[in-house]
């Protein structure tokens, strides 16, 4: 399921698959609760939340950009939807939330393409702006939904997993089989060349950022449905987990390549590790450290592989 099949990405996604097997094996031995249906569903649900936004992030990174504002966008979209559910109904409210996310993404894209601000700075700015907007919108209070079981459907049972898998399939298909997908990879690989073959790189990036915004919103909706609460402080730090699972999955930060399957596996790996450490009663502080180490390890491995291939090809 690698959208563009360079060997390095395939190796990376088999690496993350292997790591996943090892970690699962270890936790099965160490904790009796790990391999129970209830716990596995938990793992899958939390993996799905990160995977959904991570999949959007995969496109952004493949296009040579990334988006730091996804956590704030998730929170904002969650609040917007929560506040609208009772007024306009569940489905319209969900659509409004997704539209909010896509609009934030579009603004990110416009700042990058029209003002020429690097994605790092543009989305860093939007990170604080949108977070602020979410808090202003809610007045800093929680929005509770009482008795809205219909909305709960977004987070119940296998719904998050199905959403994530469906999204993975759609984005894989886009990358593999459509002109838009090809244009994303071309823009990420070499933007100057892309313009010369008639790719409207600005439009491509606007599309990509809007998709990232919408996926961030979707994961925000799932999160808020889990707790049936809209909260402006929801999903802090989601941007880092999202970037981490993409990189763990073997999509290089340099652009031009994407591994959808890698991102999915990466999300599961992170979720499994967090869950296992929880089961073993290891504090959440250590979980942060583990995620960081994992990420550094993955990037170091990639850099090492890069250096080795370089040595092999230079005479």
């Amino acid at each position, binding site marked *: 399921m690698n959208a563009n099949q360079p060997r390095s990405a395939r190796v990376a996604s088999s690496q993350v698959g292997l790591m996943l097997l090892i970690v699962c094996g270890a936790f099965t031995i160490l904790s009796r609760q790990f391999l129970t249906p209830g716990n596995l569903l938990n793992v899958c649900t939390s993996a799905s939340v990160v995977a959904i936004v991570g999949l959007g992030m995969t496109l952004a990174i493949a296009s040579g950009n990334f988006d730091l504002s996804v956590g704030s966008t998730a929170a904002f979209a969650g609040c917007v939807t929560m506040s609208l559910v009772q007024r306009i109904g569940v489905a319209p409210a969900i659509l409004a939330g997704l539209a909010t996310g896509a609009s934030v993404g579009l603004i990110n894209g416009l700042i990058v393409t029209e003002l020429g601000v690097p994605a790092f700075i543009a989305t860093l700015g939007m990170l604080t702006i949108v977070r602020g907007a979410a808090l202003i919108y809610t007045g800093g209070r929680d929005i509770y939904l009482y008795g809205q079981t219909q909305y709960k459907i977004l987070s119940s049972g296998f719904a998050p997993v199905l959403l994530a898998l469906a999204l993975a399939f759609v984005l894989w298909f886009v990358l593999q*089989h459509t002109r838009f997908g090809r244009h994303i990879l071309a823009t990420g690989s070499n933007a100057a060349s892309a313009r010369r*073959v008639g790719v409207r790189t600005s439009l491509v990036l606007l599309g990509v950022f809007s998709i990232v915004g919408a996926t961030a919103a979707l994961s925000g909706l799932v999160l808020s449905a889990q707790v049936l609460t809209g909260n402006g402080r929801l999903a802090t730090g989601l941007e880092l987990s999202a970037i981490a699972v993409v990189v763990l999955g073997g999509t290089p930060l340099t652009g031009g390549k994407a591994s959808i399957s890698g991102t999915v596996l990466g999300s599961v790996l992170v979720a499994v590790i967090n869950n296992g450490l929880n089961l073993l009663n290891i504090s959440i502080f250590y979980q942060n450290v583990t995620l960081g180490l994992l990420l550094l390890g993955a990037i170091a491995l990639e850099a090492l592989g890069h250096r080795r291939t370089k040595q092999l090809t230079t005479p």
Partner: protein
Amino acid sequence: MLALDNVSFDILAGEVHALVGENGAGKSTLIGILAGVHQPSVGQVLLDQKPTVFPDPLSSQRAGISVIFQEFSLLPHLSVAENVFIGREPRRGLMVDRATMNRRTREILRTLNLDIDSATPVSELAVSQQQLVEIARALSARARVIVMDEPTAALNEREAVRLLEIVRSLAAGGVSVLYVSHRLEEVFSIADRITVLRDGRHVVTERRSAITEQQVVSAMVGRELVHSTRPNRTVGPIVLEIRDVSVDGGLVRNVSFSLRRGEVLGLAGLMGSGCSELMEGLYGLREITEGSLLLEGRPLRTAGPQGAIRTGVGLVPEDRKRQSVFPDLSVVHNLTIANLPRWFRRLPGLLDLAAERRKTLDYKRQLNIRFTRPDQRISGLSGGNQQKVVLARALAGNCRVLLLAEPTRGVDVGAKAEIYALIDRLVQNGIAVVLQTTELPELLRLADRCIVFVAGEPRGELCGSQITQEAVMALATGLSHRVTISSASASSIQ
């Protein structure tokens, strides 16, 4: 894997020794050994008859060898003087003695005839000046052997001439120069002796006067290359007509020409003459601010490359690495990217992957592109094969006018001959070509007609046998038709 196998030759004091060979012949490895970057598994380097080993770059520099790599090693934010003396700064106590450093830098710059302030940051210099700063650094280290790897690759013709003069004066002063290049004109104008490598083996070392250019080429490619000349072409009706065109509000002005089917029109000129800008204008990358463009009698839409591609104009850009290749994408994806609508299924936007593959294999056969699998990454291909993929990309649309900018830059001699033959065939099949090149032999080989530009304006047009290096250079350097320049200066101009 052996990158170099049993290579022996010597460099004399005060000699310019040229090292030539195709890409992958082992030149870089050899340079690496001299620079202390690579270690020979067998054999040795004798310096002044004494066996010497260079375990690291520093020991090679201490021994008096200075290597100027293709990619400069200058630090852009430091000044010229700081770069020249980096690692060897003159000191007074613990402090760097800036006054001495600047004074000695100025002296060296003067010997190089380089008029820049030693305190200028290197990032503010032109590429050619940076090259000279590299040389200044070698001189300041009192290098006895200077190795130059493709030193003129980034220079325009006038700057290249300057560089060659400097190389000559270095040699006259007793410095040995190992001059690595695959520009044979240059090699023949400067080298005392020439060594040819092929596939990591030493083929021949010969005095320049004892070997011909043709012999060097055959030694490089390992076979006789048919020395090809421009075929006689039969031209068809007018395809492209441009009248009084100006690009980008005056970067290029007052250009008019018509181009027929089966014809190659050359655009020549020194760097900054406006040829590249005109090409970019024709392709819709720059705005045509005045005049009209007609493609087969209909106004050509120039709003962006999309319009150009759709109406049948294809481009092979000037800088393969920066402007045309997608290093992370496969050969297929690189080939079809400009014309994806041709591979749409019934729903627009959806691609027929199998058809893309078939087309790629078609072009592989037609253009003799060497790769193993269509989904192989393009960055694994040689420069010549990458360029053929880019050519196939331009042709894959309904291409009637092909814009070729420096079509053989950075490809080796064998691939060059192949690309010329390909262009001949395309033209014979009725494609019209606009060729922009700074390599005069290439212009002579391909162009039926040629317009010479100076400072954004056409200065004259040459036809068929009128196109000679002397005539083109006379127009390009601003000398009029009547002034003939001596053959000596003409040959050094290449």
